């Protein structure tokens, strides 16, 4: 029997070398192409497609690896995600901050009969999310290094597939393409929660799937109506220049709202989030909190607001009200949580309430603050979930009551957690402060009541986060905690350091980030401000001259 097993293992070993070579060739080739492009001007290559398809091909390559090579799978996942991150850096350095136009455009016909194009491009609104996605995926790979031991192959493949489709969502300028990426992500995410999640994972996974699917399908109908209203086009840029009748705008606003509000999640449809975030494995929670729920708010910015500007203006007060409810409701519920992850999950509801508050304030500070706060939330909540994942790996409990005195046992960990806690509260000097401050300025300008109520959310936020910190790290040490491993190791510290740097970078000097979105946000707000007014005719302009 053992001889037979040996015989079957042997050829797999032989097979792994060409696969290993292919795996290494993938990122190395991509990086080489990038260097060639940058420094020699040899090849002009499709930047965004590389970012989307490098992880997807990486996932396929990992699926082809033999089952026993778990180490190789981890390294190749790290390799692919790091290469993607490095390749995404030129988006930051070479991004033209002076224009609101789309950049890094790629455009070819895809399905000619339905006028569907493969159309990619990014502007100031989407660029930061692409960067955030590529960064967080590396950290997800790293944090899962020892936590995932079962079905390793499928795990990393799912993770990379999610990365590819997330970047695809942020880059799509064709509505059909946008929808494909938007929905395609559901499959790996469902698997990720359902297979590697906590005890209640099956329920959480199906709930996540159904909530998102219903919202997305309503958006699909909206997309179809929009397609015919635009004269058979899925081109988002063409739609941004089309003026739709007001009733249609309002209906379509709700159809798209259904998809995006579920993803954000906004107040009445947020119930999937605590379950999904709590039950998902650490990497899943980080992806969910860090990027997936940003896609909802991004959808508002990319589609709802520029496509239906009049409806946006009319419905903005309603959105502000929902945001304020989410801020306060989410924060109050946090106070009553007994589970670490669930608390952070509900805090996401509250924080995303800030984001939508800023966005629907419809002024520069609000929208810029909203976008920045999305990035901040991705960094900070991502970091908090990473931290919880690290401590869970040692103690195997998420109950707050089981902790206490962790600061003496894990001093390095406690320091990191402190920084991220303070960033979550919005202490000046951290990134949370910049974002929340801008949002509240915008909120007060839009509605004093909404601004004032939103500000109370920050106070409750400080209450529950500090309460959590005290319960877990100070008070009397729980004897059950002693002997559960040592402080953070090098891999874990390396995972958290990039986020720590970003917390302080954005907190102290946010200009590079705000500057990126300036032009695009201005253009968006002008589009909304000018909506509903009769267009100034050419002759009138000439008279004015």
């Amino acid at each position, binding site marked *: 029997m053992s001889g037979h097993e040996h015989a079957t293992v042997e050829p797999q070993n032989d097979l792994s070398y060409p696969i290993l070579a292919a795996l290494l060739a993938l990122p190395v080739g991509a990086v080489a192409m990038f260097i060639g492009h940058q420094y020699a001007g040899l090849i002009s290559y499709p930047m965004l497609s590389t970012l989307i398809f490098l992880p997807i091909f990486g996932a396929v390559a990992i699926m082809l690896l033999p089952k026993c090579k778990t180490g190789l799978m981890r390294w190749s996942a790290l390799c692919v995600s790091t290469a993607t991150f490095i390749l995404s850096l030129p988006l930051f350095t070479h991004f033209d901050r002076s224009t609101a136009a789309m950049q890094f455009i790629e455009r070819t016909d*895809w*399905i*000619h*009969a*339905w006028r569907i194009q493969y159309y990619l491009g990014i502007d100031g609104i989407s660029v930061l999310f692409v960067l955030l996605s590529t960064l967080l995926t590396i950290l997800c790979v790293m944090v899962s290094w020892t936590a995932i031991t079962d*079905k390793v192959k*499928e795990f990393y493949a799912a993770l990379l597939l999610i990365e590819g489709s997330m970047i695809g969502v942020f880059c799509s300028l064709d509505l059909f393409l946008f*929808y*494909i990426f938007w*929905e*395609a992500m*559901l*499959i790996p995410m*469902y*698997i990720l929660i*359902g*297979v590697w999640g906590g005890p209640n*994972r*099956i329920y959480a*996974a*199906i709930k996540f*799937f*159904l909530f998102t*699917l*219903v919202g997305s*399908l*309503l958006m*699909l*109908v909206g997309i*179809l*109506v929009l*397609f*015919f209203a635009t004269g058979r086009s899925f081109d988002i840029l063409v739609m941004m220049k089309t003026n739709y009748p007001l009733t249609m705008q309002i209906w379509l606003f709700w159809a798209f709202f259904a998809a995006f509000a579920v993803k954000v999640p906004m107040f009445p449809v947020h119930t999937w989030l605590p379950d999904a975030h709590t039950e998902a494995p650490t990497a899943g929670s980080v992806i969910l909190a860090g990027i997936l729920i940003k896609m909802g708010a991004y959808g508002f910015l990319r589609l709802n607001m520029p496509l239906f500007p009049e409806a946006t203006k009319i419905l903005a007060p309603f959105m502000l009200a929902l945001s304020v409810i989410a801020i306060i409701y989410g924060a109050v519920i946090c106070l009553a949580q007994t589970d670490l992850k669930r608390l952070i999950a509900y805090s996401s509801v509250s924080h995303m309430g800030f984001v939508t508050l800023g966005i629907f304030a419809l002024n520069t500070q609000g929208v810029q603050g909203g976008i920045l706060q999305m990035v901040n939330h991705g960094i900070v909540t991502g970091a908090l979930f990473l931290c919880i994942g690290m401590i869970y790996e040692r103690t195997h409990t998420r109950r707050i009551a089981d902790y206490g005195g962790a600061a003496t046992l894990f001093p390095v960990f406690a320091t990191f957690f402190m920084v991220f806690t303070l960033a979550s509260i919005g202490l000046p000097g951290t990134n949370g402060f910049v974002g929340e401050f801008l949002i509240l300025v915008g909120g007060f300008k839009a509605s004093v009541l909404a601004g004032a109520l939103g500000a109370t959310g920050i106070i409750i936020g400080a209450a529950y986060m500090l309460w959590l910190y005290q319960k877990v790290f100070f008070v009397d040490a729980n004897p059950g905690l002693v002997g559960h491993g040592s402080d953070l190791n090098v891999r874990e510290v390396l995972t958290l350091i990039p986020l720590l740097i970003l917390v302080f970078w954005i907190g102290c000097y946010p200009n590079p980030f705000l500057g990126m979105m300036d032009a695009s946000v201005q253009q968006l707000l002008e589009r909304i401000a000018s909506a509903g007014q009769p267009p100034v005719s050419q002759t009138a302009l000439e008279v004015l001259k």
Partner: protein
Amino acid sequence: MNIPFPDLTPVLPEIILAAVASLVLLVELVAVRKGPIGGIGIAVALFLLYLLPYTHGETFGGTFVSDAYSDWFKIIFLGNLIMTTLASFQYIQRQHQDFGEYYSVLMFATCGAMIMASSRDLITLYVGLELMALSTFILTAMKRHDWWSNEAAIKYFMLGAFSSAILLYGFALLYGLTTSTDIRQIGAHIATTGPNPALLLSLVLIIAGFAFKIGAVPFHMWVPDVYEGAPTSVTLFMSVGPKAAGFAAIGRVFYEGLGALQPDWTTFFIILSILSMAVGNIVALVQKNIKRMLAYSAISHAGYALLGIVAGTTEGLTAMMNYLLIYAFMNIGAFCVVITMDCRNDLDDYNGLAKNHPLLAAVMLIFMFSLTGIPPTAGFIGKFNVFMAAVHAGYTWLVLIAIIFSAISAFFYLHVVMNMYMKPGAVRVRVEGFPTVLAALLIAVLAVCVIGVVPSVALR
């Protein structure tokens, strides 16, 4: 009276298929090893089809026509025949039903379906329909000594006979009112006279007859029992063949013949469509047997395809045709997985499949997501296409209903995925992946993925 000999080139595929089917029947009487003969016969038939000249055009006095429309359906039928044959070889041996007639009856059923797609005359249509229906009855009863198989066949036969009679009654009324069985002449006649109550009665009867064939609610009662009782390879065959044939006939009769009555029949099809989606998707939720679940899923997919008919435009017709092609691939794929599993076909038999057979589970996952309609699979493209046609025709509200049921359907399709990936396997089920069915699976999964990503390669 000198009747000219009809031009046979447009009808050549049917002739070849019928001839080869008869030959297979004869040869198998005397052959010792019966297994390969059916396969060889079908291969020969396909080779001849490829070899011999075949033209578009009408023949037999305009009662038989072959055009792009019928070609499309014939490709589906022949594809279905090939896939069924591939999936059948070892399966029917395992089931001890390796009878000589099996493959030739499959060919006769396919031939009947092809005649239906090509007929432009009510009589020809009926002959094709009966050839197909009777062959399928026989196929259902193929497990001679199996109680379930016989019960299914009896049910199918009784209800099928009723539905044929109802259809025929409708045809008779139509003939009485328009003095013709030629579909185009009927169309011309109705265009001049307009609707009247007797015409509407015949319309209802015809719709009822066809709705039975496509398994639309409320004429769906036979579907779950027959799908469950029949040998799985036969279930595979009839979940695609007769359904697509029914749609082919609906398209021909209602678009070409009864176009003038469109407002009337649209209402009926809307009702059928909504009921099919509702009953199919909701009842599927509580099924314990995967064949029964796929039966209700087939009912609901008839509802989605009907959206294309409801749209009443060329775009809608095209969307319906595309939908059926895509449905054929994903449904055949799902049934091929069922065939490889040598078990009682309970949903619980799939528990933990991903651990023991990761590749098979991954393939089933793709088919389940495709049937749900999640991109980037072909199922999404199909749904998108019919929804697009319906929205364009002004039926946005109907599409809203369709998407609600679509979301409900996710629940039971995901149930399979959940069992495969997220539950521990209780008893290890024997998986028999013999080469031919794996080839069919490979074709189906490739088609589902490729159509999902680049639909233009296969769709109209």
